[in-house]
């Protein structure tokens, strides 16, 4: 089923990942209507084109996040949810935490 209207979701950043997104920890975004379903895979491409402010290589590597960045969907590890293939639903909260910063 194609999504007629945009998909409203919340994106959050922590552990230093926010520094790549204008130092803003929480972004309310509306993903544009598209054919088929939004997945984390297509979300990452959209984020790279629309949200990522600097040094994209520190966030995205190939089609996925840079190793060492944790992804949680509604407070659950994306590794339990199919990772890139997870189908995003309205009101989802997707959190990216960098483990690579500080010490």
């Amino acid at each position: 089923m194609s999504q007629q209207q945009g998909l409203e979701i919340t994106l959050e950043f922590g552990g230093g990942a926010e520094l790549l997104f204008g130092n803003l920890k929480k972004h309310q975004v509306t993903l544009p209507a598209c054919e088929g379903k939004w997945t984390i895979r297509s979300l990452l491409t959209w984020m790279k084109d629309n949200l990522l402010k600097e040094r994209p290589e520190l966030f995205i590597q190939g089609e996925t996040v840079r190793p060492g960045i944790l992804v949680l969907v509604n407070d659950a590890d994306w590794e339990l949810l199919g990772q890139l293939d997870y189908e995003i639903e309205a009101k989802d909260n997707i959190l990216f935490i960098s483990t690579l910063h500080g010490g």
Partner: protein
Amino acid sequence: MPVKCSSSCGKNAILKRPKTGDALCKDCFFWAFETEVHNTIVSGHLFKKGDTVAVAASGGKDSTVLAYVLKVLNERHDYGLNLVLLSIDEGITGYRDDSLETVKQNRDDYQMPLKILSYEELFGWTMDAIVGQVGRKNNCTFCGVFRRQALDRGATLLGVNCVATGHNADDLAETVLMNILRGDIARLQRCTSIITASESEGSIPRVKPLKYTYEKEIVMYAYFKRLVYFSTECVFAPNAYRGHARAFLKDLEKIRPSVIMDIIHSGESLQVKDDVKLPVRTQCTRCGSVSSQELCKACVLLEGLNRGLPKLGIGKTSLANRAREQQDAQKTRIVNCDF
């Protein structure tokens, strides 16, 4: 469809453990995480009842989680420890000054006394001033060497029995790799020890309770426990060599999550042949710290800074000695001219 917790408690899982592949709910994860650290502490004989333990606290994720989990375990298992926080202020504007605010928050939240020691009071130099002298290329060497010594001196000052550091499994695996890549056999041999033994009089042992704890779980634990930590990159050049080892390890981990434990296991099991020449550890003739040279690295680096020869401790010892002699000879010449 949410995945259920592997422990069949009926709750929804929130995390896939990198070490075991288990899916755990929040409560079972907390329990597993804390129990594993407890087992590491017990099986490694890290503490004795009545010990005063300084937690080396930077305000970052590892030391924040370490301080918290030690407090929890100390109460739960009646370790009888007296826990204190020890922080080093390297004097890096826009980085350490901010992270020390987080440590002060830890002090208040966990009700632990805090001691902050600065490079400036110990060595007469802040990192800002050192970078002004040496530039951004080798400054991590100064920072690392001085921090080691600063922690030792802080521990002595506080009269603690040992210092607990937040080194995690990923850190350790990185260090094993780096020591292999550099051919540093002496460090390779001791870098996986859970207690760095005190070989010289008066040196205080260091312990690593998070040695077998994955970074992912530390970050997840901090997140689900809502622990506040500081996560800004140091404003000076990052440690490039470690960065490469880290990126390599993270790439491997994606394919095979057990790689981190496997590398630590390799490091622990390595045996150095009898005929391999290893540096003899003695004491620095100037400050008494453990050293394999007549002068320890911290003393050489400090002398370099104070002489205006900041490269003194960076290259080979023979080059350093030559630079030192040259400067002394020059001074003598100048003195001779005066008379």
